Each structure stands twice: as C-alpha cells, then as structure tokens.
C-alpha cells in the first residue's frame, strides 16, 4: 500500500504528528485517543490537544467503524493554558491577584 498524500497531513501541529503516524498507531491496536496519544505524542504539546483531539477521534471513528460519541476522549490535564513556573510557584502572586 503506497502512502496517500493526505496521510502526510499534520494532525497534531505542536508535536508534528502526521495522519500516517496516527493510522500506524491504530493499526498497532490503539482504540482510544489516549492510546494514540501515548504511542505518537499527538496531544502532548503546548496546546495539549485542543486542536487535534477531535481530529484524532474522527480518524479513530473512520478507521474502526465506531461512532464518534463512543470513542473515549483524551484526559484533560490542568493547567489548561501554559503557565510559567515562577508564577505557578508563587503564593504571593495569587494573593495579590485576589486582592486586586
């Protein structure tokens, strides 16, 4: 089977994971978004899967014949937006923002 040009499309932009790599993970047995994530890193980057998690679900649905709604979604992890460690570590900053 020769690769289709559309398989070169990047699905996870943060980690530069192509559709081809997602298809390979599914061929190896991945059936959930988390399993695809653990094998390919799709969704592990700066945006934490905001863009790609639905795309990955859709590819899983199309490849396995399961309805979109039945594909187990990826885990959401805090903090939803990137935060500098200096800010995260500082109790005082939080107190000030509460007061202002």
């Amino acid at each position, binding site marked *: 089977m020769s690769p289709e040009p559309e398989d070169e499309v990047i699905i996870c932009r943060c980690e530069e994971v192509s559709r081809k790599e997602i298809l390979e993970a599914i061929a190896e047995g991945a059936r959930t978004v988390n399993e695809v994530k*653990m094998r390919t890193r799709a969704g592990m980057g700066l945006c934490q899967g905001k863009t790609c998690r639905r795309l990955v679900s859709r590819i899983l649905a199309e490849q396995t014949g399961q309805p979109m709604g039945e594909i187990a979604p990826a885990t959401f992890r805090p903090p939803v937006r990137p935060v*500098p*460690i200096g800010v*995260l570590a500082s109790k005082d900053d939080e107190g000030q923002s509460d007061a202002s």
Partner: protein
Amino acid sequence: MLPDVVVIGGGIVGCACAYYLSREGVRVCLVEKGTIASGTSRAGQSHIVLWEEPDINLQLEKASRDLYEELSEELPFDIEYRRTGSMAIVENPADWEAFARTVRSLQARGLNCQLLQNDDLIRLEPNLAPDLAGGAFFPEDAQVNPILTTLALAQAARERGADIRLFTEVTGIALSDHRVAAVETTAGRIPTARVVDAAGVWSAAIGKMVGVDIPVIPRRGHIIVTEPVPENLIHCKIILAAGYMQTLGATTGVALSANIQQTRSGNLLLGSSRDFAGFDRSVNPAVIQAQAARNLRFLPALADIHVIRTYAGLRPYSPDLVPIIGEADSVKGFYIATGHEGAGITMGPITGKLISEIITGKAPTVPLEPLSLRRFSQRQEED
C-alpha cells in the same frame, strides 16, 4: 488452548511478566481492565536509579538496569533508553555530612558513584542555584520512556504468542483445594492453574479474592510537565534533591522533594510529592504550587519556563518499601508481583524475569526470601 498463566494487570510489571514468560514458551494470557499503561505506569517520570536502599532493592535495581540494556536492543520499537547517569543534590550544609556518609557507604558496597563539592557541582551544572552544599553523580543510572517501554513489552509478548485482553476486569478467582483453578472476568471465565497478581495499587483487592492479605496501598504522586527546553539547561538529565530519600519513609502529610528530569522529547518532568489519599487520582493545586516552588529553589532558571500539563498517579506502596515478589504460601499457583512504590519502572524488567524464573523452576537472578509476602507475618511474630 488454555493459558498456563494468567497475568492480571497491563502495567509495566504485568507486561514484563508476560514478556519474560512468553519468551520461555509459557502460554500467557494477560488481562487488563483498561488499556496498556493506563494506570501507574503512565503517571511517573523517567528515571532508573541504582541507589535506593535497602540492599535487596540495590540488587533489584542493578539487575533491572542490566535487563534494560538488553531490552533497548531486543524490543520491537525504541523505548528512549539512555545511560544518562543521575545527580543527587544537597541543599543545606547541615545535611552534607550525613549525605557524604551515605554515598561512601554505597561506594563501599561496590556502587560506582562520586561526591561533588559545591564548585564541582556548579561547574557541571551552572544553572543550578549557586548556594547548594554539593551533590553526587551516579554514572550507572539511566532514563527510559515508561509508557513506550510498557507498550513495547506488551507488543513483544503478543508477538511471542501472549493473548492480551484489554477492557477485561477480574471479578473473582476460583480455587480448587487451595489451588488456583480459574480467573473470572467481565468477559468470561479463563481456566488456569496459575495467576500472577501484577495489579499494582489494586493488587490487594485481587489478593482478597483468594484470601491472601497483601499490605499494598495507593500513595499519590504529582508530576509537572513543562514545554520543551534547550538541552543545555541541565546537562545531567536526572537531577534530584537528596532529601528525596527521606520523603520515601514519610507516612503522614505531603512529602515533597525536587526531581528534575529532561526527557528525549525535550520536556522537563518535575517531581515529586507523596501523600496517602486513597484512590483519588485528581491533581491538588496546592501540592503542584509547593512542588513547583521546591524545584525552582534548586533550578532558578525554571521561573520563565511554561508548565503545559500536570498529573497525579498512584504508587503501589509496600510498608517496608521493598516489592513483594513470589508465590503465596496459602494458595498454590497464586503469584504476587507488586508493591514497587515509585520504583516500578526501574524494577519492572527484573520483576518479570523473576516471576518467569519462579514459574519455570529456574534459579532466581536475585534472592527471593527478602521479597516474600511472609516477611510481614514473620516480623509481626518477632514483635
């Protein structure tokens, strides 16, 4: 065909058992209630360290690291194993003498490691806080990607004939005359004469099914993941505060330490916390804040680096911090492989090898008596 052995649990320990058993030609069926590496094995960091006491653990760690050298060659895909070495760092001058004694004692027992005075430390790692007392370098230590390792062990076991059943939860174990007869699951009954309880934080619940009391409870840990950072931020890819060793023994409150690791993908994994919160895997923001502060104390350059993800997982805590590996005395065919606390990744391979050696009747790589379940009841009798 009926399996010779049913392994319960698709974490690193269960997958290593399935791998080493199937390599010996044993017919293995592995049952996992979720997916491979969906519990503790995906919730840790990346280190393989050879200096966690007591002596029996040192032996397990060394033997397992040696197996990793082989696994990194023989598994079906890259597990991101590399011999990075690790560095322990000491914050306060008051703690230096006790730390130096520990390092010298490890050296006396044959471990390759060297003490680093403050100026040595700063020369090697110029981004560390300049006021640290010193540290030590452990060149034998290594790093691996735990998730990829667990997946690769499962795949290699499958290639050698293991039957791996996901989304299959164990509901009971049938005995016949104090021997294992079958495993009952949500997907049907599996007749077998041997079961390996590699269910980690859930191993006590499995033991209860056959009346075996396994003193393993979940101990929560938090990890902070940063964006990828330049390779020259830290040169040694595993840097941990020496105070980490004291947190292992803490039994109340939240024990915190700094543990800075850079993975192959360039991200930092910042540990570590330890607390007992039952089976609660949720992230506690107060712990994350304190853990971030602890790591920042040792590596001030972290201040501007972004956190992209945090997670918490559960370590299978055994009361003496030594894993439990071996056959139960009271139930023939019930084998236990659990209680590794934070060392499941380090000790996973040797645990799988030992279980395979026990079941196939081969001489064990590491002495088994200190790992037995009966050590706990013997100690009670001695008390």
